[in-house]
Each structure stands twice: as C-alpha cells, then as structure tokens.
C-alpha cells in the first residue's frame, strides 16, 4: 500500500482538480442499471459505479460519487463540483462542443419498449400513441425532433418524466404505450417481464456513452482513456457488464 500512496501524491501534482487522492465522479443516481441505489436505499450500485471504482483503483485514488441532476451535469463540471461525469451520458455534438467527451466506454442505442401486443415496431407506429421518455435524455430529444418535423406526431403525446423509472411504471400500468430509452436500461427493466414487454425497435445510429469533463482537463482525460483500455484488456469491463446487463449483453465499445 506504500506503492499506492506514492501514486496518489503523484496524481495530486499531475491533475489540478484532484485533491487528497479522491476522484470525484458526478452522476444522477436514479438510472438503473448504470447508477442507482440498492433496495436498502443507501448503497450506490450499477455499471457506472463499479467502473468508476475500478478506474479510481487503477489510478490509486479513492472514488467519491456525487449526485447531480442529469440536466445540470455540464454546469456542475464547469464549476468543479466533480472531476468527471460518468452517468450514461451519450456522446453528442453539442456536448463535444461545450465539454470534453471521452471515447465511448460502452456501446448503446436508443430503443423502444412496448407491451408485446401493442403492435408497435418502430417509431413510425407511434403516431397517436403515448410515449414516455425521461426529460432531457437523447430519447427526449429524438422524440421532440420527430414531432417537430412530422405533423403526424403530436408533442402532447410525449410524456416527459423526471425519472426513467416513472416511464416504466407507465407502460406497466397501461398509461403509456411505449417507452423510448437507452437499450441498456431497457434490458434491465424488461428483465423478468420478458413475457409481457419487448424491445420492439432500436436505433440504427449507435449512441455510445462517454465520460464528460470540463474543458481544459485533458490531462485527466488521457489518464482515464488509458485506464479504460487496461480495464477492457484485463476483462474487468466485461465482468461488470455481465453483472448488470446480463450474460449475453453486447456492450463492448470500439476503442
């Protein structure tokens, strides 16, 4: 452990934002299976969480997770509330413009979850149907643009919730016809309910997740990229992915 200590002091000098050997990771902790609380209501778990811990470990740092509303993660980064955001953040052009986005750390697409008997097989079938999305996610943006471009979709049919969990509640109790959501999340929620619900569509465009950092923090980015490559190489990523996404999930990002 003396080894670890020397590592820590080194990284302190390397990256200005990191203090006292703690890597601060921002996330909104209500997004299973990537970051969420265990049933006891206190233990933070999920893919991003374990990945974050593994990364910190490799860097010889302690991981600290900071809860932040998803739609203000960018702002919080800019004011140094945490060093990096690992929160199922899709790599978009807008984000690349305002922040540093890392290479993809896992693959993802947006998808449509429906009850089996709904007969919805693509966004084309959504006309006049109620779609639930989480406010501010890429799914929200996708649906909003669809409604803007195509008058057959009504904006009023898009129901925007604060939490993705609410979206799934809605298709379970029948108040919504479909949920548009990241596929990794969709898989998790369908889980046991494979008989009633199905992923009826997924986007062609991949929408991988990346780490988001404040502009100018390239030093940390470089370290993170390197560590993720190592974690891919030693199988850690795969182990965590299997734990949270199931045995047959294909999430490996092209790196």
């Amino acid at each position, binding site marked *: 452990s003396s080894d670890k200590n020397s590592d820590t002091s080194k990284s302190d000098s390397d990256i200005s934002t990191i203090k006292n050997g703690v890597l601060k990771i921002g996330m909104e902790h209500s997004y299973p299976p990537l970051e969420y609380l265990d049933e006891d209501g206190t233990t933070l778990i999920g893919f991003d969480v374990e990945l974050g811990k593994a990364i910190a470990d490799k860097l010889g740092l302690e991981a600290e997770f900071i809860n932040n509303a998803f*739609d203000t993660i960018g702002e919080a980064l800019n004011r140094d509330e945490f060093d990096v955001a690992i929160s199922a953040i899709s790599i978009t052009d807008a984000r690349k413009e305002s922040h540093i986005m890392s290479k993809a750390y896992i693959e993802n697409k947006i998808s449509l979850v429906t009850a089996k008997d709904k007969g919805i097989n693509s966004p084309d079938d959504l006309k006049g149907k109620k779609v639930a999305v989480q406010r501010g996610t890429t799914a*929200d*943006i996708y649906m909003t643009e669809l409604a803007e471009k195509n008058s057959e979709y009504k904006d009023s049919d898009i129901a*925007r*919730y604060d939490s993705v969990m*609410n979206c799934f*509640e809605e298709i379970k*109790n029948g*108040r919504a016809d479909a949920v548009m959501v990241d596929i990794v999340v969709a898989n998790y929620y369908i889980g046991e309910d494979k008989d009633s619900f199905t992923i009826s569509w997924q986007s062609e465009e991949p929408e991988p997740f990346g780490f988001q950092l404040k502009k100018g923090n390239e030093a940390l980015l470089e370290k993170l990229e390197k560590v993720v490559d190592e974690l891919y190489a030693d199988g850690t990523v795969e182990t965590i992915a299997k734990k949270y996404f199931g045995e047959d999930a294909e999430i490996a990002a092209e790196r």
Partner: protein
Amino acid sequence: MSEFWQAISVNFDKIVNWIPVLLKSTGTTLLLTLCSVSAGLVVSVFLALGKMSKLKILSKLCSAYIFFFRGTPLLMQLFVVYYGLPYMGITIDSKFFAAFLAYAMNSSAYLAEIIRAAIQSIDKGQLEAAKSLGMSYPMAMRLIIIPQSIRRLIPPIGNEFIMIVKDTALVSSIALVELSGKTKDIMIASSSPLVFVPALAIYLLITGVFTFILNRLEKRFSVYE
C-alpha cells in the same frame, strides 16, 4: 446584470416565439386550479362542519383527514395518487384527473380550516341573538353565520387559489404539461434559462390579476359594513 439584459435583447425574437407556447400550457395550469379549488370547496364545507360537529367520531375523522393533507407535502400526495394507487389496483388513466384528485383533496383540507376559522370568527353574539329568536343551530348557520362568513372567506380562499396556481408547477413530475413543465422543456431544448423570464411574467400576471379581482370582490361583499 448587464449581461442579463443583453441576453434578453439578443434573444428577444426567441422569447416572443415562446410566449404562445407557454400560454397554451398556462391553460392547463388554470383549468387544473379552477377545477380542484372548486371541488375542494364543496368537500371542505362538509369537512369544516364535520370537524365542528359534536359527533366525536365524525369530528375525529374530519380532523384526521385535514391533518394528513395539511401535514404532508402535496408533491408526495400527488405521487401516491399517481404512482401509488395503481399498486392498489386503482389506475387513474388521465394525468389531469389524477392531479385534480390530489389537488382537490389537498385544497379541501386547507379550505376546511379556512371555513372553520371564518365561522368561528363571527361574533358569538350573533349565534346567541339567533338562538334567542328561536332559531335552531342549523337555521342560524344557514341564515346568519354562513352568509356573514362569506366576506371573510374571500381573501383566504383567493390565497388558496393563488397557492394552487403556483403548486400546479409540481405536476410536471407526473408528465402533465403545464406552464412550469413546458418552461423546463424549453430550457433544456434551448440550453438557456431565458425562458424563465416570460414564464415568471405569466405567473406574476395571473397572481396579479387574481389579487386585483379579489380586492374588488371583497369590496363588493362588504357593502353592509
């Protein structure tokens, strides 16, 4: 501050374009408020009389209802009605109706206390005079006490109305679109908080106009004072 004004003038067209969108969602805000305060008012009369009743069980029940709805956050009440009830086999399909239900129950509790206070603020001598003229308690209530309370009810009921107008902001959490939810959507879409400016203005307009009407009504009802 100057940055702020600059931002406004640069984005003036954008802001103007948002206004009709915001106003449309204001319709929901007002409709929800109107429906729930009206329904709450009807229920509250029974709650108030029930709480003042000499029948212990009735009085206790009404007190408990009032205590519960005044003692817990409206947001949670909304959640229980919308997300909780389905687990008990009751699924309310319409978001509007679910919100209406939660808000009506909530405001009925507040209004019941308002009505009770107004009735109790009427000089005891009025009831005694009515009694000494042979009126029964219900008759005295109907002819003497309640008509006199009405004027005193206007200000607090108006306040409750304004409260609910503002509290409708919470229904965005069940994805019912009204003024606040729409504002948030626009903020996210435009990645700028400028939309708050017209949104806050609309809220101020509603509360301002309503306060004005209230004052008028109050004067109207006080002819005999």
